[in-house]
């Protein structure tokens, strides 16, 4: 694991992309230009994070069936772009995409690790919580994932991927942290709404509070890559940001424009944050009692607290 006091910080780039809806090949070509730019940066980032549905746009409805890829194909396409522009230079890439496997479709995010010799798929996370209300209609077209894996990023160590609404259910980052995650990475596509706030849309403020809460409760880094641009009148809110384990926002992008957001992560900040606010350790101690509580509806064969 890099990013400690001996090796210097881990170098991260969050790509706030504005894909053209459904234009996969065109968006792939744009990503090649972005990778070329990233490879020319000094220093070159060690981790690149792309948003949810990064190469297709988010609101695809039935067109998701035409744009989905297998994880292997998507991983090959993305990693080949990096190889083309950066040769054998190692990098890790996280990116959201619509996945197909055996006729089932998922809103997924892949984690790739490229070294001099090979490209490995380290993890594929399938979105657990598919928003299907109001403007959202994911579950009509997609299947749900069923677990949060914590995987070992060669750069960051134990890491979890969550996609968009996954992060809104506090139990999901909690499970990730309990399983050892020190960094939680959230590719997202968040349509903006709420004009009652001051200075920014309410949904942007809400996301910021939410992600800072995750970082502070669990003493972990949170990296958020947000899709930007309008999709049929629905403006994606970008706001890609990196948050330190003490809740400090290290860097944050504006809402609407495409950009590259760079951050440096001193990974040993996790130990400091957890030592100063040991909530995760406290939770480990108390959680077994909480889960054994026989008043929990599912332990009583009920679906909710009303007894129904």
């Amino acid at each position: 694991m890099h990013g400690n006091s001996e090796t210097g910080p881990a170098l991260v780039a969050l790509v706030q992309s504005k894909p053209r809806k459904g234009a996969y090949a065109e968006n792939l070509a744009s990503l090649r230009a972005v990778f070329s730019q990233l490879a020319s940066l000094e220093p070159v980032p060690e981790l690149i994070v792309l948003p949810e549905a990064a190469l297709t746009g988010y609101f695809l409805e039935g067109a998701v069936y035409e744009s989905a890829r297998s994880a292997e194909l998507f991983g090959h396409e993305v990693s080949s772009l990096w190889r083309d522009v950066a040769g054998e230079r190692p990098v890790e890439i996280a990116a959201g995409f619509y996945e197909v496997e055996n006729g089932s479709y998922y809103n997924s995010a892949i984690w790739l690790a490229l070294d001099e010799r090979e490209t490995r798929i380290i993890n594929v996370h399938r979105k657990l919580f598919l928003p299907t209300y109001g403007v959202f209609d994911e579950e009509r077209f997609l299947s749900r994932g069923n677990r949060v894996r914590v995987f070992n990023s060669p750069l960051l160590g134990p890491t979890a991927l969550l996609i968009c609404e996954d992060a809104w259910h506090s139990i999901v980052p909690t499970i990730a942290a309990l399983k050892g995650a020190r960094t939680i990475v959230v590719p997202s596509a968040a349509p903006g709404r709420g004009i009652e706030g001051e200075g920014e849309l309410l949904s942007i403020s809400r996301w910021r509070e939410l992600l800072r809460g995750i970082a502070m409760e669990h003493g972990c880094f949170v990296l958020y890559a947000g899709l930007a641009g309008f999709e049929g009148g629905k403006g994606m809110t970008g706001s890609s940001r990196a948050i330190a384990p003490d809740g400090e926002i290290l860097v944050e992008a504006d809402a609407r424009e495409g950009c590259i957001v760079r951050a440096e992560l001193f990974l040993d900040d996790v130990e400091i944050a957890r030592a100063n606010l040991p909530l995760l350790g406290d939770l480990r101690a108390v959680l077994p009692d909480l889960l054994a509580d026989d008043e929990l509806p599912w332990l009583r064969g009920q679906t909710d607290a009303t007894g129904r």
Partner: protein
Amino acid sequence: MLPVVDPPKRDPYTAPKIDPAVAARWLVGFLRDECLGRRGMENAVVGLSGGVDSAVTAYLCVHALGPRNVHLVRMPYRTSSPTSLHDAQLVIDALGAVGHTVDITAAVDGYLQYEPEADARRRGNVMARTRMLVLFDQSAKLTALPIGTGNKTERLLGYFTWHADDTPPINPLGDLFKTQVWELARYLGVPPAIVDKAPSADLEANQTDEGDLGIRYARADAILSSMLLGYRDEQLHARGFDAAEVALVRRRVEGTHWKRHLPTTAMLTNTAINEFYLRPVDY
């Protein structure tokens, strides 16, 4: 080409920030609670050196208790800088508090005449402890609670006379770094002549705190604020702090833990005070 958004350039030596309005409000509440609530004392007495710490303490006390209930005592020694005396008077005048001047020369020299070989350090400690004597006696005379003025930086670096500067029963500034005290001073309207001058214990001519310590307060505070969170030296180096300064600060902090405690008492029984027999300070 996409625009690149970088984190704000971070100077590791950025001093820890405060919101001075919030801090002032909180500390005024603390002083009211300790003086009026817990002890039923309407008056406070503060030793006023002409420096920023005691000036800020005086301002806070006046906000908490009113100017007529705050006694500000100047305690010059014959070698003290006239500027210190003058600056202390600025505070008394600005606040309309009750000013007192007690010259400690006779008391200090009354003892030191028998110790002619005492070096500057010993002489300084005698002056500081004499001021403590005066402050506590004035407290009894005026029925006024002595208020401490030591800041967090000097407490951590051990840059104070034990059982002198640290003796008052309550201290509003003890958890504020020196740079934060300066920020609070500007917010409270402490005269710029006091805020902007080089801090000095004024125990010798041309003495400055930063000269004694070997590091600027702003740099020490930045190191301390990270060090206290638990960062080890190599982690501080990786974050851009100078290794020699980190070592200096670490040496001072780790060599002075004893100064931040009451005297060590040998434990002999199952009822040893503060070991077995434990009661909160406000119980």
